[in-house]
């Protein structure tokens, strides 16, 4: 082909095509070799660590902090919705539990100031346990009814926070402590950046390992065909409960960080919109693929930012809804699904997305 091009339009175009193809195949070989992977990873890590120094605007660092928290949460929801294929429209409730736990136990509100290193893991555990307890009856429901129950639960949490005196009702809690890791206080957005970066990295590693493990495979089998999975010896009930427990933990952790970072929380941060936002990150990014979800969370936090403050601000909210519908119709498997040997993966059985025959 390049031969023909160079004859008709001159040698220039031909060499350009060759150059591009050559580079593409070199990259293909490089990125799949172990050495290539290590180098890529190292480069990315260095760049990420340099970012607070490279970007002057504190505003954008804060946006990255937000993106990091969403990445943490989307990865958690991905366990429930992406791996196990369960429905959850109230993930923000676990976020709220973590956030309020820290706010109540580390602020002037009740004049308690418990240490971060104690409350942080406890928040994760509490969210997990609450999700587990909720799932015990909830998972006996199917489809729409399960979705409604998770939604109803999230709303009850928000309404509880909005009315209870120990959460200072609608006014919220102010002057929340910043976390301190021993001698290091985490106060500025740049300091938060490093904490969030490390936690995201750890979580991605954990999720990738789960994804490719016996448990991950079991979850996916349940997602694909629960009856067949049960017949193959999988205890589907306990595996689904496990998915709910593990999936909620990151939300509790992110909640604590959110609380500390904002130093002020109120029930408005935990509305239904929040749950839908996180869900759309999972769906758009690629259900069941950790890296896809990371990308989805990042894009959906960063891309709408320029719209904030402009006349299209409320359009941001519309954007998520439209995006969910568009993805469901044209690409239910997400932008970056897991792929095998060339054949593309479909969205699988869900109650949110239709399985459309694309291949």
């Amino acid at each position, binding site marked *: 082909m390049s031969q023909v091009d160079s004859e008709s339009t001159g040698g220039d175009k031909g060499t350009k095509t060759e150059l591009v193809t050559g580079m593409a195949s070199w990259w293909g070989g490089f990125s799949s070799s172990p050495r290539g992977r290590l180098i890529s990873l190292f480069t990315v890590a260095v760049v990420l660590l340099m970012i607070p120094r490279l970007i002057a605007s504190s505003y954008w660092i804060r946006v990255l902090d937000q993106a990091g928290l969403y990445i943490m949460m989307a990865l958690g929801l991905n366990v429930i919705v992406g791996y196990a294929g369960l429905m959850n429209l109230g993930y923000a409730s676990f976020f709220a539990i973590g956030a309020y736990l820290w706010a109540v136990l580390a602020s002037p509100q009740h004049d308690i100031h418990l240490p971060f290193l104690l409350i942080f893991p406890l928040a994760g555990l509490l969210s997990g346990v609450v999700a587990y307890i909720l799932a015990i009856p909830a998972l006996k429901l199917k489809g729409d009814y399960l979705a409604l129950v998770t939604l109803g639960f999230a709303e009850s949490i928000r309404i509880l926070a909005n009315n209870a005196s120990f959460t200072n009702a609608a006014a919220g809690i102010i002057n929340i402590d910043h976390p301190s890791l021993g001698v290091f206080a985490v106060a500025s957005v740049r300091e938060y950046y490093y904490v969030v970066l490390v936690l995201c990295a750890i979580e991605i590693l954990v999720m990738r390992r789960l994804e490719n493990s*016996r448990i991950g495979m079991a979850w996916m089998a349940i997602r*694909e065909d629960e*009856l*067949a999975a049960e017949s193959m*010896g999988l205890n589907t009930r306990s595996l689904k409960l496990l998915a709910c427990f*593990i999936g909620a933990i990151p939300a509790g952790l992110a909640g604590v960080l959110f609380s500390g970072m904002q130093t002020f929380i109120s029930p408005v941060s935990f509305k239904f919109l929040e749950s839908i936002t996180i869900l759309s990150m999972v769906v758009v990014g690629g259900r069941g693929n950790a890296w896809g979800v990371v990308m989805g969370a990042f894009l959906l936090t960063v891309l709408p930012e320029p719209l904030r403050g402009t006349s299209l601000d409320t359009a941001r909210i519309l954007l998520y809804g439209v995006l969910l519908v568009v993805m469901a119709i044209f690409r239910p498997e997400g932008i970056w699904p897991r792929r*095998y040997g060339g*054949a593309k993966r479909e969205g699988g059985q869900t109650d949110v997305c239709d399985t459309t025959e694309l291949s």
Partner: protein
Amino acid sequence: MSAPTVKGTGTSQDGLRRASDGFLKIRSVSKHFGALKAVDEVSFEVQEGQIFSVIGPNGAGKTTLFNVMTGIYPATGGQVTFLGQDILGLPPHQITDLGLARTYQIVRVFDNMSVLENVQVGFHCRTKAGVWDAIFSTQRAKEEKIRSRERGLELLERVGLQGHAQELARSLPLGSRKRLQVARALATEPRALLLDEPTAGMNRSEKQEMMALVNDVRDAGVTVLLVEHDMNVIMGISDWIVVLDYGVKIAEGTPEEIQNIETVIEAYLGRGLAHESVGG
């Protein structure tokens, strides 16, 4: 319908009958859906190492019986004993764990997982690595992963799918999907395998291949219980046959005996024709 059960007089059943608990015993099992008696007081016994077929016209209750045996439906009455254990009322995963696996008439494979992964799911109940093992990549996790992959590829080779290991299960044609189901069920290391209409929708050569596979499975030490609709398929391969009609057992015996029994022919072809074919 209460036609008297006609038992064959073949020696195979008598010779192997033991006083012990037996291998797989179905005693007076019933499954009623309201007023409909889908399965009505069916009893038979499967000996280890047999290829045992349950046949009957459409709606005879064969699949319902399988579903009751494997814990998909609760039974209305009766008892099923497998390797000395009462299995009625147990959840399906526990029954599989005890060594009784099954495949489905309408193929249920995991579409968005690879062919190899489908089989590996079958090993789940025979392996132990949990969340901790996964996250910390323990020795147990690593060893089990290697073993499950090796065994998976072995099983794929046995059913003739080794070239498709990395393909998505959804891209396989029907015959291959059926064989994948068998490989996946074999991964659970069963003592007995229930195959629900394994040759439905297949052409003649595919049916022959499937039956050769069934023979292989039995020769490897797994007792096979077949539900089948196609008489030709099971006549050549079965050690013992039970015939159901309208939820009731109407005959049992060796293939030769069954072929000549009037009630059986009646069930398939209708009355009147039966007299002609039996020869007066």
